[in-house]
Every structure is written in structure tokens, then in C-alpha cells.
């Protein structure tokens, strides 16, 4: 099922790998800003891709609380569940 958290996490990691390139280990605890150097503009572009993939809208206010890969995956999962 698409709204399964693990599937969200997997797809998110796939997007992140494309963004930061190979050779960087990405775990749920990875910090998006400090470890993957994803700045605010890159993050907004990533969100647009994710929105297309999951057919959701992610309010940018919600991103203020997102620091790790896990936190972003949970946010997407939560919005996806709400919209269904």
C-alpha cells in the first residue's frame, strides 16, 4: 500500500540519492541540512517532486519542523493518509 510508511521512506530516499549523488549513506536519522547540504531552495524543489510522486500538497510551513529524513517521511505519510 502506498501510504505505508516504509514505502514512503524508500521512495523519499530514492529522490534524495538522485539529489545528492552516489556514495552518500542515507538513513532515517540523516540530517537533511547539515549532512546532505540541502538548502532551502533545493528542499523546495525536492518537495515539488515528492508532491508529484505522492499526489499531495505539502504546506511549506510544515517544513520548519523537519530536520531528518525520518521527519520528512513521516510528514509525507501523514499528509497522504489525511488526503485519502
Amino acid at each position, binding site marked *: 500500500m502506498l501510504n505505508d510508511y516504509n514505502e514512503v521512506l524508500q521512495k523519499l530516499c530514492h529522490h534524495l540519492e538522485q539529489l545528492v549523488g552516489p556514495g552518500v549513506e542515507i538513513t532515517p536519522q540523516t540530517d537533511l541540512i547539515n549532512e546532505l547540504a540541502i*538548502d*532551502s*531552495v*533545493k528542499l*523546495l*524543489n525536492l518537495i*515539488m517532486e515528492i508532491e508529484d510522486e505522492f*499526489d*499531495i*500538497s*505539502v*504546506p*511549506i*510551513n510544515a517544513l520548519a519542523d523537519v530536520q531528518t529524513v525520518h521527519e520528512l517521511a513521516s510528514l509525507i505519510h501523514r499528509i497522504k493518509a489525511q*488526503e485519502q
Partner: protein
Amino acid sequence: MSLLDKLDAVAAARKALLPEGVEVFGTPIEEVYSSTEARIGDHRILFLGTNNYLGLTFAQECRDAAQEAIHSEGTGTTGSRMANGSYRGHRALEREFAEFYQCRSCIVFTTGYQANLATISGLAGPGDIVLIDGDSHASIYDGCRLSGAEIIRFKHNDPADLEKRLRRLGERSRSTLIIAEGIYSMLGDRAPLADIVKVKDAYNSTLLLDEAHSLGVLGETGQGLVEETGLLDRVDFITGTFSKSLGGIGGYCVSNHPQLDQLRYVSRPYIFTASPTPATIASTRAALRLLREGVELRRQLWKNVHQLYSQLKELDYRLGPEPSPVIATILETPQQALALWKGLLENGIYVNLVLPPATPEGNSLVRCSVSAVHTSEQMNHVGKTFARLRETVFQ
């Protein structure tokens, strides 16, 4: 990281990007000779990056009106209109703007930035949604933040993406404020207004259009994109600025919704700041008259636009998608952009250098803006210089 360490990090990032001794941002201007010429260091330069689209900063009528206002009403109002009252000029300018747009009301603000802050945060609040174009100006983003509403971006100039997002919102689309710009400030492209209006009507949302760069530039009388497209009465709120085609400083919002006036009582960027000075209001009133009658200025402006856009296109510079008074050359690296910017300045042409993150899609831009009062000699010099610099920039 401490507060001050964070600023040190900003300084280090800037130093890494820009060579020593080049004051790229906030370049000192020693003397201003006219709306198109000034002195930087020992060099006479041509302004090709201001937003002085109609060249009105030196219009005699505007300067006389400002001087007269200083003599009769003083240099400032020293307070907000809420507390210290509305001068005759404030009220007259609001009437004149409302009449210009054939709208019920207008509110004038101290800057264009504040016009967006005040209008957006006055209209939307916690629990509402603002649905904004991804390439929106910082004042729109900041207004949305101040509102406390949920902020969702749609893909730049993509009404289908806007529609998809409204559909997902269901009933909440009724409490959604959609925001777009007449002409986008970085690449000079227009919003697809007819399609946006259709989508907004279908979902019973509200539409705000920022005509900052299109006022005075588009439409027979210069109202902006609403006039060019004949959609004035389909847009709920229009904001704009006095700082570009009107050659002053300040901003406005016009609307047919009677509720607009209530913004005066709820909108912090209107209440908690001093009102525009008498000189500003007087020069803007004079400029608005010239703008409305400025058919010839607009003809000259667009002649210059088409000349430069087609010259740069022929030279194979990568440009924004359509000719407009904002003509941006898009470069792959900040270094190329800096080389072009410096080359132009060494040849007496001062333009805007715009680097990420202030640019769409992380590109670097050398942003030119064309004025009605640029002469054909000046435009020829610009074209020749771009041709000469091509080799150096792309080597």
C-alpha cells in the same frame, strides 16, 4: 552556532563566491545625472538594471510636485495613519488609484513590500490557505508567513498544477487565496492570467495579482496585465508598487470588494509603520497622471525591449521566455554571470547580478531592465557591448 557566528558564515560564503575588491551588491553610486546615467567611481555609467520603466524619476512634473509638497506639508508624517491621521494627499492618491482601476477602493502603503505583507496577512489567517506561484517575490512569501495561513506553492506559471492542488483541497478551496504576478521580476515572463482566472472561478477561490512590474508597462492606459488581457473585473485584489514605473516609493492595493477597507484595522504592516511622506505622495500623483497618458512612453519602451531582446537572442544568449522590460540573461555558473556583469560595468553599463538562492532553479542571472527613455545610441552601445563580451564570458 551563536547569533554572530551565523553572520560570519554568511560573510565567508560571500567571500568564497566573489573576488576581493568588487562591490557587486550595493555598488556605491557617487552622483546621479538623469534617470539613465550616473557616476560609479570615476566612470560615467548607464543604468540598465533599475526598474525605471517609464523614466519618470526625473520628470519635471514629479519633481516640482514633490518640492511643493515639502514646502507646504513638511518632510514627513512622523506616524501611522491610524494614529496620526490621513493627509489630503493620501486620500487623494487612493481616490485616483481607485478611479484608475475603476474599482471601489484603494489603500496606499508605505512600500510595495508592505502592500503585499499587509494585503496577504489581512486577507488570510490561520486555518486558511495561500496558494502561491513557486517563483513569487520575497514580499509574497513574507506576507504569507505573517498571515499564519498554510502556504502551498504551485509550479511556476502552471494553471494545470494550480488546478490539481485546488482539487486536492476540496471544500477548503473556498478559503484559499491564490497569488500570481503580472510580470515576474527575475525572468520577465507574464502570468497565464486567463487560465488562472478560470481555475479560481471553478473552485470559488480568491485571486490576488501583484502588478509590481507590469503597472505602466502593459495595457493601453498602463493598468498592467489585467488591462492587456481584459480581465480587470475577474481579479479580486491587485497590489503594486510606486517604486518602479512611478519612480517613487510606496505601494497600493485596489479591489471591488468592500471588505478591503477593513484591512486598515487588522493589517499590521499598515497600522504599525509611518505613512508615506507628502513628497512621495505628491510625486506619485503626478507620475500616475503621466503613466495613464503615457501611450508614447510605452511605445518607446517596447521598441527598446524588442530591440535588445532580439539582439541578445541573435547573439545566442540564453534569455527569459518572452520579451519584456525585464530582460535576463541566464548563465550556468555564478562565475560566468560575474564575468559578464563586470565586463558590462567596465564598459559603462550597470545591471543587476542575481545569484542563487534569489533566482529561479538555481541559475545565475545578469538581469537588465529597459526604460522608455533609453536613447537609441544607448541601446546600440548595449547591444555592441554584449556582442563583444560573448567570447570572454563563454570561453
